[in-house]
């Protein structure tokens, strides 16, 4: 649905050129929710603005729905933009218009008839559940309601693609959840391709199918959300994952004398993670079959989109041999393990 080929954006200035985006290639499929995560200044805002040409790339090609935006004249580009919706961190609603008139705005631009506009706006007010606020002005709404108006406005011209520029960054966690639920709902109901940029891993975790990590204008890692979450490769990615999935050993545990190999009387600290249904009772089998004791230090079950994702920090004690065979067993089991070290 969206294809970026060697897209570059450099800002030229007397003080020196700034390469905000270096040769970037992306292929976003029809109907997927694609997340782009990065710290501020990483180039994610530039990237998403290149998709609808709010920022004109200094090199490369942008294709949306098979049409090359980078080859279009102004008129054709305006036409093309009408099928690309966009929502913003600060909503960017017109303060002088009511909710209803804000949603009608893109339709007015397209010169739709009054009757057509009224009908469409009513539908959208239902979709975002704001019928009772139709005649309010933006300043009378909460942040979450404003973003709902933003979403309704973006959907007014039946776009194929929705670009979300940090749409939940200015909202509280509860409201963020409800906005994400709404985005997911419209993604499924309208088969809408959604590209969202964010600095919140929480957002990616809840709704993205695939994710790209951007740093210094480069995409450093890309994959399905499950892959990136469970097997992050780059340091930055690991840091992002850690923000929602803290794998550090609790401070109460004495790790001062931790070593990487077995020493007399030591216990092994292991992180176990599983994705999906855990049908293999790993902990029970360890105790029953391998003659070791398992002490659970911490654990939680989380969801990556709809998939359960469990993490468990355990301390296994036993003889040197039984520990070795127990670790062998874990290695073959359907869980991912990470041996942290041996402690006394």
């Amino acid at each position: 649905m969206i294809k970026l080929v060697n897209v570059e954006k450099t800002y030229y200035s007397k003080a020196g050129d700034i390469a905000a985006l270096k040769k970037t290639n992306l292929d976003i499929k029809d109907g997927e929710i694609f997340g782009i995560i990065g710290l501020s200044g990483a180039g994610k805002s530039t990237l998403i603005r290149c998709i609808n040409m709010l920022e004109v790339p200094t090199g490369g090609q942008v294709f949306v729905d098979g049409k090359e935006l980078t080859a279009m004249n102004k008129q054709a580009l305006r036409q093309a933009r009408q099928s690309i919706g966009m929502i913003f961190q600060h909503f960017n609603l017109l303060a002088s218009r009511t909710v209803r008139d804000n949603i009608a705005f893109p339709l007015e631009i397209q010169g739709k008839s009054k009757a057509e506009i009224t009908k469409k706006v009513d539908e959208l007010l239902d979709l975002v559940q704001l019928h009772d606020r139709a005649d309010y002005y933006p300043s009378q709404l909460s942040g979450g309601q404003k973003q709902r108006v933003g979403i309704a406005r973006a959907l007014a011209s039946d776009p194929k693609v929705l670009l979300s520029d940090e749409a939940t960054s200015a909202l509280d966690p509860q409201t963020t959840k409800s906005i994400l639920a709404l985005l997911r709902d419209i993604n499924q109901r309208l088969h809408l391709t959604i590209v969202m940029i964010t600095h919140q891993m929480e957002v990616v975790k809840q709704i993205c199918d695939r994710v790209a990590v951007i740093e210094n204008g480069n995409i450093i890692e890309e994959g399905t959300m499950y892959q990136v979450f469970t097997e992050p490769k780059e340091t930055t990615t690991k840091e992002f994952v850690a923000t929602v999935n803290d794998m550090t050993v609790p401070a109460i545990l004495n790790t001062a004398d931790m070593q990487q190999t077995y020493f007399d009387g030591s216990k092994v600290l292991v992180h176990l993670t599983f994705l999906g249904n855990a049908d293999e009772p790993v902990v029970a089998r360890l105790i029953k079959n391998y003659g070791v004791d398992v002490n659970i230090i911490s654990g939680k079950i989380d969801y990556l989109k709809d998939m359960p994702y469990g993490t468990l920090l355990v301390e296994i004690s036993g003889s040197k041999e039984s520990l070795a065979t127990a670790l062998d067993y874990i290695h073959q089991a359907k869980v991912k393990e990470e041996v942290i070290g041996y402690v006394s």
Partner: protein
Amino acid sequence: MSPEMLPLLLKSFWETCYMVLASTILATVIGIPLGVILTVTRRDHILPNAAVNGILGAIVNATRSTPFIILMVAIIPLTRIIVGSSIGTTAAIVPLTISAAPFIARIIESSLLEIDHGVIEAAQAMGASSMQIVTKVLLPESLHSIVLGITLAVISLIGYSAMAGALGGGGLGDLAIRYGYQRFQMDVMIATVIVLIIMVQLVQSFGNYCSRKLNKNKL
């Protein structure tokens, strides 16, 4: 103040109203497009054009830096072409308009610049043309601020109209100078000043009221 002065005061009052109203309307009609062009051709705006912006800006600045009394005398030939005479209330409208239009243009410009760039970006993302951005975003969104600015222009025009009056334009200023100053009729002077003060108060209050009604930011 003698009773026979009253009709004279009333006549002068209407002359001032006529001069101020006509020149405000004309100056606004000229000032709005000028202000819009000054805004949109800025380097970081929707239709950047350094040449247009630079030239227009220079003309506006030149007009604004010329003292009104000098401007009025300097453009007498132009006034004569437009109105057919350089003396009289109608003739005063020409210099008043020419001095107020650039002022209003700058007021419009500063009002339009208050609009958050994000809102303009949102309209661009929807495929709005530059004209649509001006008529559907920039002007409606800043209307409350423009109204306050035009109020300010009306009040300075009341002041300028008194000066125009001194050069044969009629109105309250003319009355105050001819009777109050030249004939030492202190009561006429005081009456004129009181009428002017009341006018300015009313204009300002009305402007504030309209702006408040139009401002949907703080409800």
